[in-house]
């Protein structure tokens, strides 16, 4: 012990190979390199365990709620994920090449490879930022912040916060085109089944006050127009005198197993329903609890008229802010997998998605800083064939980041 220490003291701790970065407490450069390498491998093993906790969450939830995964992944953009996979693989290649350059004392190659790795890592983060910001704007987020503006198929969803950018005041629902368009709803007609041609019902919507005995007073019947306020910009005030107004709502039911056609054909699976949504202005809100919404719908003339009248108490059906809904009619529908609203607890998919890609993204970000540090050292010419440990260790770390993504990509983006 003491003799070896003396030997190093004579050497000034710099070994026999000349690199000033070989520390005196190692026998030689090889000893230092191997110690570092063992250290980084143990760190990588820990990283595997670190991420495995999230993979357990993913697998467990997928085993129990596969329908959520097969629905929710449609919100993710496979193209973005695939590009990011390619970018990360390229960066892994340049990182491995950087190690080779360092080992062979190719300083310019080393600088180029490290710079390329940084560029790819930044590219990955930029693409991730584009994906995240799109999800932020569409409210496709984790936990209780999951409140998407549209289904993966592009059908608008009524959100809890109703804060979808650029969509405030969308009042026209074009069943033919299968999407909402802006402006006012011009005719009091509802297409009960969008798959059948033509309009199947004409509706009139009334508000009826409840008397002291709790019964509706027919004399107080007041038609509610379906001409809603024109579209206004985000954050502006609505023209309150135009309220209340109503609009039809097409809502396919959720079935427990949307992926199984046999189950979908029977029972509760995928039955579209049409409802009436009545919206109130804020000033109207206070004195409404003692009234009900009455919707009278009938099939338009040539076909014999069918009265689909339903009455629903307004205060019981209030959804969110000043929103009442009456259920009019049910129809059996087919293949509503992507037209329908998300299954319950779909937010869990995005909780897991953001946890996994977020933790991975943090690793990428850390990698960027590590490689910038390597770039500075490489420019200073500090890496030599007998001292390139940091390049090797950082590259190994980078490969494990790539490795995690190799699994995340098919598990999140490529679900069938």
């Amino acid at each position: 012990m003491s003799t070896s220490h003396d030997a190093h003291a004579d050497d000034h701790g710099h070994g026999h190979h000349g690199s000033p970065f070989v520390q005196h407490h190692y026998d030689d450069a090889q000893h230092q390199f191997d110690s570092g390498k063992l250290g980084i491998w143990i760190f990588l093993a820990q990283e595997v365990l670190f991420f495995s906790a999230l993979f357990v969450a993913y697998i467990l939830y997928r085993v129990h709620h596969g329908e959520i995964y097969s629905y929710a992944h449609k919100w993710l953009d496979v193209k973005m994920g695939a590009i990011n996979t390619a970018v990360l693989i390229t960066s892994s290649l340049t990182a491995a090449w950087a190690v080779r350059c360092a080992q062979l004392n190719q300083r310019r190659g080393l600088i180029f490879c490290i710079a390329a790795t940084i560029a790819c890592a930044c590219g990955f983060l930029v693409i991730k930022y584009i994906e995240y910001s799109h999800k932020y704007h569409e409210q496709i987020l984790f936990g209780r912040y999951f409140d998407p503006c549209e289904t993966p198929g592009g059908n608008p969803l009524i959100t809890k916060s109703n804060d979808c950018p650029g969509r405030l005041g969308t009042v026209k629902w074009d069943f033919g085109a299968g999407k909402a368009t802006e402006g006012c709803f011009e005719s009091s007609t509802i297409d009960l089944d969008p798959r059948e041609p033509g309009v199947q019902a004409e509706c009139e919507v009334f508000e009826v006050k409840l008397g002291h005995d709790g019964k509706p007073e027919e004399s107080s019947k007041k038609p509610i127009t379906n001409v809603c306020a024109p579209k206004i910009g985000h954050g502006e005030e609505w023209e309150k005198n135009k309220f209340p107004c109503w609009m039809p709502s097409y809502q396919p039911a959720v079935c427990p197993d949307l992926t199984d056609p046999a189950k979908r054909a029977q029972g509760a699976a995928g039955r579209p329903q049409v409802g009436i949504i009545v919206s109130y202005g804020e000033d109207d809100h206070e004195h409404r609890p003692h009234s009900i919404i009455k919707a009278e719908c009938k099939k338009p003339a040539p076909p014999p008229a069918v009265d689909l009248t339903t009455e629903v108490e307004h205060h019981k059906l209030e959804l969110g802010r000043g929103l009442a809904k009456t259920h009019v009619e049910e129809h059996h529908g087919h293949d509503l997998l992507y037209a329908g609203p998300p299954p319950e607890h779909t937010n869990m998919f995005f909780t897991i998605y953001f946890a996994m890609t977020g933790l991975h993204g943090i690793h990428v970000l850390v990698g960027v800083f590590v490689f910038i540090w390597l770039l500075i050292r490489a420019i200073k010419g500090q890496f030599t064939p007998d001292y390139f440990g940091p390049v090797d260790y950082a590259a190994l770390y980078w490969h494990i980041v790539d490795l995690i993504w190799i699994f995340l990509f098919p598990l999140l983006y490529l679900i069938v």
Partner: protein
Amino acid sequence: MATAPHHGHDDHGHGLAHVAAIKVLLATGGTLLLLTLVTVISSKIDFGGASINLAIAMVIAVTKATLVVLFFMHLRYDRLFHSVVFCSAILAATLFVGFTLMDTDQYQQTNIWNPTAPPMAPVGPRAING
């Protein structure tokens, strides 16, 4: 394999570790990119069930991961002990998943909704900000 460390020595005398050949690096990178394309395309094809598609995607992912570990991470040419460290981490992760899934079917089905009146979120025109 046994000759691999010597290869480095022959090249430069120092040889703290194996030097990856450019051909190997490029072939690995190319194969990884190709497999990425394959996995994307295979996800568009129905192989007769979601679980078969999942199995194919996972086989491709494991192949890609193996390539990264063996060639980019030099584990093929590295000390055996590093492989032991890494494989034990994979083993631990597998046990972790396995034990968690062990009681998967041991519980009664939880009815999260009434099948005759399933819960739903309304679809249609946007609610107007009241």
